Structures are given as structure tokens and as C-alpha cells.
């Protein structure tokens, strides 16, 4: 089995918590976590719902392998309609919270309605109740966790929730668990805050004791762990350098978006790279990086734990930021750094701490600050309204806005709305580097062509975690393709998107896919779960999940014109590096992609495709 076979439905309006059996027929078709929660969500929520209204729902979902000895088996996802994008939102997190929820005996929590006053949800195994959160409202994620552990006199309680950003209407507020792991993107934390729900505190002591064939499962997980250990990326590169191993690589190939995508290479990349995190600082002789860290069950351990230089301007006289905490991952380092032209590693680390503490997405924030800096340099935004001079490269401005954005203070309140709304307000919508209203992550699609298609078609808006063709186009996983051409990328994007949907529905971390394919996951699922989890069926499940998300977006009112890139990437050629002279060739890839997906020329699934996958058009 490995599903707990039980979901918790929380009606925040009425204040009730009710247990329901998991719909096993749906589990057989959608596996778990991202896929299964999307099925529930699309069945229960009107796609046209206002994301911040009580009629929207928020689902916390684990996968069947969450809470098992499968490597990285500790993931959970948060599914809702995103306020940043108006599209389906699904954000995935590690840490320990997901496994704890499963150990308490729950596959999912469906949160609906809106509480009349701030509350938090307390779960202790079968017992679930909503409790008053008046004392917690306004607190940071760090203080919230400390408060709840103290309140229940239990250091083993795990906490997931929002910081001030989720309360003040920041449209990219994150859900943060275990201090510095986050379901970070698309504003899932904003929806949580709109429901007056501050946090979920869970303690589970029941464990997972129902894998279908324990002996086969242990054998399969041991074999799969060996694959991770023997692989150069998951066995050596990620534990030592983290995802930051990419900074210099992506810069060299000319795909590091720089200064709001004006350029594709950043002269300060080396200063904010993994290598820089390892190097002793001039000031105190210590490196920024303290150690690596694993999430629950993970045998890769790519997480970064860092300490900020105590004499750095961002933390002088602020001892609360002198301890070790979640350090820079590649996407955050890019967004807080290259996207703004800032090469001050300590300032980036500080902004990252603030993102975790106040609960916002550093990618959308950093990219939006990039747009603000461009508008400042154009003379559209002035120091008087910003509260600070904000040219590209200003670490002071970065830290200044990082202090404001989650608290809804000063100009930070406008940055909190994301670059689409901000640039439109100031008359330059073309400067918003977004798809479906969500900011790009750290790969420029002029230098990695396939990513242009992956971004344009991503169901949750611009994202690297929905079809990471960087693996193939740059790293050669599973086979090397040329990043500068569009040929063959439609098929590549589709294959990555479908496989990713399976990883995200299983309870496992997508980063295993640097070493694993679905062929490594199939035996683990097959041993743990009833049902058909053969390679062939997993491919169909992944495609089904992708199409279900697409159906939601279509019914929500998104069309082909939302599967597009900003004009800068299609008209302004890369000025340096291997991609010099290139724009993204989305128009060459998109029609072929629709065709391979079995969608019509407008990007709508055909009747045959719906029949083959068992999906339907939504109303």
C-alpha cells in the first residue's frame, strides 16, 4: 500500500476537521502528491475561482513513498490556484514536515473556506484541531516554529506555515517548513494567509508500516541508493557544491540571465558561485558555507547551511542573523545576484535568510527587483519613491527591499506584487521577465533553447522544475543535446515534463533524476504500492497529470497566448557568449510541441488525447 489511505478535510469557515478515506481509484490513476492532489483539486474547485477567495482550496499532499526508506522520500506538495498566475499552482518542499504528516497517518490535508480569525492546525496522529493563532499572527516562520514547539513542549513537532509575507498579500508568499525548506513558488503561502491559516504543526508517531512487499522494497531502495551514490552529480557534485555547482557552468555557456535579462553572462558570477561559498572570507577567514544538509531520507544532501559574516553591513548589530541557516541554492543565488547585477555573496545570503524568515519566494522577488533596477536606470522610478538609490549592482538596495517586501512596507509593498503588475503599473510591461505572470528562474532561453519552450508551456508559469531540459542540453543527462538549436526540443520538453510529473507524484525529490530515470523509480513503487507502476504505465500517469493541469488552466481562461515568452527573449539577441546573436526560437518549437502532446493548434487536448488519458475538459 504505502498510502495512509486517509485524508483530512479542514473546513476553516466552520472550524471542523474530518477524516475521509483516500479515493483509491484516483490513486491508481494519479499516484499521489502532485498528481492525486491535482485530481482532487480539479474535481472540487471551480477553475474560474478567485485565488484569494474562500472558494479556493489549498491541498497539502504527500506521495506514497513519503516517509519510507526510499532515498529522498520525504517530499510534500502544496496545490492551489495561484494568485500570482491565475493558473494551477503546485509547489514542492523537502525538510521533515512531509514525512511527519505521513507518520501521523495522513496522505493529504484539504483546506477549504476561510477562518473568521487567525488559526493554526494542530495534528497529533489521528487528532486534528484548529486552534487560535492570535499570538502567532505577524510572527516570522522562525518565531512561529519556536512558539509551537514551546507551546506543545515537544521539540519533535514539525511546522509548516507562512510568515508575514503570507499575511500582507505578497503575491509570491511561500509556505516554509523546518525553518528553511519551502514550497516556494506561485504564492501558495498567499492563499494560506487569505484563509487566516498561519501554520500546521504536526507530530506523527504511527510511522509507515504498510509497504506492499517489504523485502522487495528494501532491495529496490538499496539498489537505487547505490545509483545515486555512484553518480558524479548526485554522489559528488551536489553534496559538495549544492545546486550552486551550476553558477559558473551556466555563465560560461552564456545562459545566466543578467540584469533583468539584458545580458546572458555576469562578470560577478564567480563571486556568488559554489566555489565562492567554499572560499575563506577576507574579513574573518571563514567560508560562507558551514556544511551541507539532507532533507528527510535523502542520501544526496545538496542543502546548503551558511553563516553570514558578522561584520557585513546587512547584519551589523543583528545577532539573530549570525547563526547558521539555510544558505544559497543556485536559483536564489541567481535571482538575488545575477538578475540584479549584485555580486555580494553575504548580501545575497542575508536576503535568502529573510526570504525564509518572512516567507517569500526569492526567485520572484529577485527577478522583480531586477525589473525595478532597470526602471530606476531608465529614470522611470526615482529614489524618492523607492526610498533608496537602486542601480543594478546595489547590494544595499537588495537588502533594503528584502527587509520590506514580506512586511508590506514602503516600496516593498509594490515589489511584493511581482514584476508583471509592477512593470505594467509604471508603463513598461515589456520589462516583466515572466510567463503567466511568474518570474523566470536562472536559465536564459537564448542560450538554452529548449528551456524557452519549457517555460512557455509550464502549467504553473515560468519554472525550471517542470521540464528541466538543462539536464540534457547542458549536462548531457540522459543524452547530450545542443543547447543552441530548437530541433528536437519539443519532444525533449514533453518527455521531461511527463517524467517530472511522476517524480513529483511519488514522494521523491526531482533531484534524483540527475541519476535516476523512471526505470529506477518503477521497482521502488511497484514493491511499495498496489497497482500497476510499470515503466509503461508511469509514462502514461505523468502525461495524464500534465494534461489534467492543462485542462484546469484552459478552464481558468488561459489560452495559447499565455504559452509565450517576453519580447526581450524573442527579439533582443544575446550579446556575448556561445549564444551571441541568438534569440529564443519558441515559434519553431511550440506547434510541434502541441502536436506531440495530441493537442490542437490552439493548445487544447483533442478528444482522442482525452480518451487515451482518461481526462476530460473542465467547466
Amino acid at each position: 500500500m504505502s498510502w495512509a489511505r486517509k485524508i483530512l478535510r479542514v473546513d476553516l469557515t466552520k472550524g471542523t476537521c474530518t477524516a475521509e478515506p483516500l479515493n483509491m481509484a484516483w490513486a491508481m490513476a494519479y499516484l499521489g502528491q502532485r498528481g492525486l492532489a491535482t485530481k482532487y483539486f480539479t474535481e472540487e474547485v471551480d477553475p474560474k475561482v478567485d485565488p484569494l477567495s474562500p472558494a479556493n482550496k489549498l491541498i497539502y499532499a504527500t506521495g506514497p513513498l513519503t516517509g519510507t526508506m526510499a532515498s529522498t522520500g520525504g517530499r510534500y506538495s502544496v496545490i492551489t490556484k495561484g494568485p500570482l498566475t491565475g493558473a494551477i499552482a503546485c509547489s514542492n518542499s523537502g525538510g521533515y514536515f512531509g514525512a511527519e504528516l505521513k507518520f501521523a497517518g495522513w496522505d493529504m490535508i484539504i483546506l477549504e473556506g476561510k477562518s473568521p480569525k487567525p488559526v493554526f492546525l494542530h495534528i497529533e496522529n489521528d487528532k486534528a484541531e484548529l486552534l487560535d493563532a492570535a499570538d502567532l499572527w505577524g510572527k516570522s516562520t522562525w518565531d512561529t516554529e519556536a512558539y509551537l514547539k514551546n507551546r506543545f513542549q515537544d521539540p519533535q513537532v514539525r511546522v509548516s506555515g507562512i510568515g508575514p509575507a503570507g499575511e500582507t498579500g505578497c503575491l509570491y508568499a511561500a509556505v516554509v517548513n523546518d525553518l528553511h525548506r519551502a514550497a516556494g513558488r506561485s504564492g501558495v503561502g498567499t492563499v494560506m494567509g487569505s484563509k487566516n491559516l498561519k501554520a500546521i504543526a504536526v507530530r506523527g508517531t504511527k510511522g509507515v508500516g504498510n509497504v506492499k512487499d517489504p523485502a522487495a522494497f528494501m532491495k529496490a531502495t538499496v539498489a537505487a541508493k547505490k545509483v545515486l551514490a555512484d553518480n558524479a552529480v548526485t554522489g559528488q557534485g551536489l553534496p559538495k557544491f549544492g545546486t550552486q555547482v551550476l553558477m559558473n557552468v551556466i555563465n560560461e555557456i552564456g545562459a545566466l540571465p543578467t540584469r533583468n535579462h539584458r545580458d546572458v553572462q555576469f562578470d560577478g558570477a564567480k563571486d556568488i558561485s559554489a566555489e565562492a561559498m567554499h572560499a575563506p572570507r577576507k574579513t574573518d577567514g571563514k567560508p560562507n558555507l558551514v556544511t551541507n544538509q539532507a532533507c528527510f531520507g535523502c542520501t544526496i544532501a545538496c542543502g546548503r547551511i551558511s553563516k553570514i559574516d558578522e561584520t557585513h553591513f546587512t547584519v551589523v548589530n543583528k545577532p539573530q542573523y549570525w547563526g547558521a541557516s539555510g544558505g544559497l541554492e543556485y536559483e536564489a543565488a541567481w535571482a538575488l545576484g545575477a538578475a540584479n547585477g549584485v555580486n555580494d555573496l553575504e548580501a545575497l545570503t542575508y536576503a535568502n535568510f529573510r526570504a525564509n524568515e518572512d516567507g517569500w519566494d526569492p526567485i520572484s522577488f529577485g527577478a522583480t527587483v531586477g525589473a525595478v533596477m532597470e526602471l530606476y536606470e531608465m529614470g522611470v522610478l526615482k529614489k524618492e519613491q523607492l526610498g533608496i538609490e537602486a542601480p543594478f549592482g546595489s547590494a544595499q538596495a537588495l537588502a533594503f527591499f528584502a527587509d520590506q517586501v514580506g512586511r508590506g512596507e514602503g516600496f516593498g509593498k509594490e515589489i511584493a506584487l511581482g514584476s508583471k503588475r509592477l512593470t505594467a503599473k509604471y508603463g513598461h510591461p515589456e520589462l516583466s521577465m515572466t510567463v503567466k505572470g511568474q518570474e523566470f528562474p536562472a536559465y536564459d532561453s537564448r542560450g538554452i533553447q529548449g528551456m524557452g519552450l519549457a517555460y512557455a508551456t509550464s502549467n504553473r508559469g515560468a519554472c525550471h522544475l517542470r521540464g528541466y531540459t538543462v539536464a540534457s542540453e547542458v549536462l548531457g543527462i540522459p543524452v547530450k543535446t545542443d543547447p543552441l538549436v530548437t530541433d528536437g526540443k519539443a519532444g525533449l520538453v514533453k518527455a521531461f515534463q511527463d517524467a517530472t510529473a511522476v517524480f513529483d507524484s511519488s514522494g521523491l525529490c526531482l533531484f534524483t533524476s540527475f541519476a535516476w530515470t523512471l526505470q529506477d523509480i518503477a521497482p521502488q513503487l511497484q514493491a511499495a504500492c498496489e497497482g500497476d507502476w510499470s515503466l509503461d504505465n508511469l509514462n502514461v500517469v505523468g502525461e495524464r497529470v500534465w494534461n489534467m493541469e492543462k485542462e484546469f488552466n484552459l478552464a481558468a481562461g488561459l489560452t495559447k497566448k499565455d504559452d509565450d515568452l517576453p519580447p526581450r527573449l524573442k527579439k533582443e539577441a544575446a550579446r556575448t557568449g556561445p549564444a551571441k546573436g541568438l534569440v529564443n526560437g519558441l515559434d519553431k518549437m511550440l506547434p510541434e510541441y502541441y502536436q506531440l502532446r495530441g493537442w490542437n493548434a490552439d493548445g487544447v487536448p483533442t478528444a482522442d488525447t482525452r480518451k487515451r488519458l482518461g481526462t476530460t475538459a473542465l467547466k
Partner: protein
Amino acid sequence: MQKSLHIDPAKCTGCLQCEMACSYENHQVFNPAKSRIKVFDFHHSGRKVPYTCTQCDEAWCLHACPVEAIKLDAATGAKVVLDSVCVGCKVCTIACPFGTVNYVQDTGKVQKCDLCGGQPACAEACPTGAITYVDADWTGLERMRQWAQKLDNQPAAGHAD
């Protein structure tokens, strides 16, 4: 040759594979709440520390037990709780200076590390070598080797020519 669990906190990543392996070995469930080894997370320093019973020779728990439910496994040196004898009085949990004997609500008995009869599941599951099962007389061997290695490339004393 007797062996001991040897813990090197600097290598621990906090993945909890050891806790799941322990609970699975002893309770057939993946459940850190039932593990006899615990990993402590000191997040302000970034340090993770796995901790479990060190199998004291003069074991406080064994001597404190009023019903002689804790016995020496002569082959491994482990102090083993006999479930059939334990009455759940918890005196051993008070006696143990390190806190590594703990009560289990479900069974009404105490539990502690028994070295899995000589094949500790935690050490087998640890992906980084933070928990190893080594010669009891030479738990310091690896650390000695690391320091010795620093001398490997040095010119021999007294032969500076």
C-alpha cells in the same frame, strides 16, 4: 573481536536513514518515533549529531533493573532488554546517565540499542559513514589515520638534509 558503534557527527547530514532502519529492524515500520538512535539537529551551528547507547561495561541500566530484564549479550557486548521479563517500571531510564534507554507506550516495555545482534541496521543504512561498526578497541583508528596522514608528506625528523 568485539565491535562498537562509532559515531562521527561531522559526517552526518541529518537524513534520518538510521532512524528508519532502526525502527524497521525492530518494529517493522518506518518510524523515527520508535528508533533507538536519534539524530539531533543543532541548527544554529549547522551540526547534526546521531546519538545512541554506547553499551557501558558497568551498565547503570542493567544494575538498576529490579527484575534482571537487561542482560549482557556476550557475543556483541550489547546490553539487551528481555521483553518477556521487563515490567516497564522505567527505573533504568532514570539510571542511564545518557538517556539512551526509553519507554515504549505501545508495548509497555523499555527499549534500547541491542546492536541488532551484531549487524546494526543504522550503520548499514548510513550513507555517509557517520555511523560505523568497528573494532571496539580501535574506535579512534580512523581519526588517528587522518592525523597520521598529515605527516605522510613531511620530511622525516632528523633527516632534514
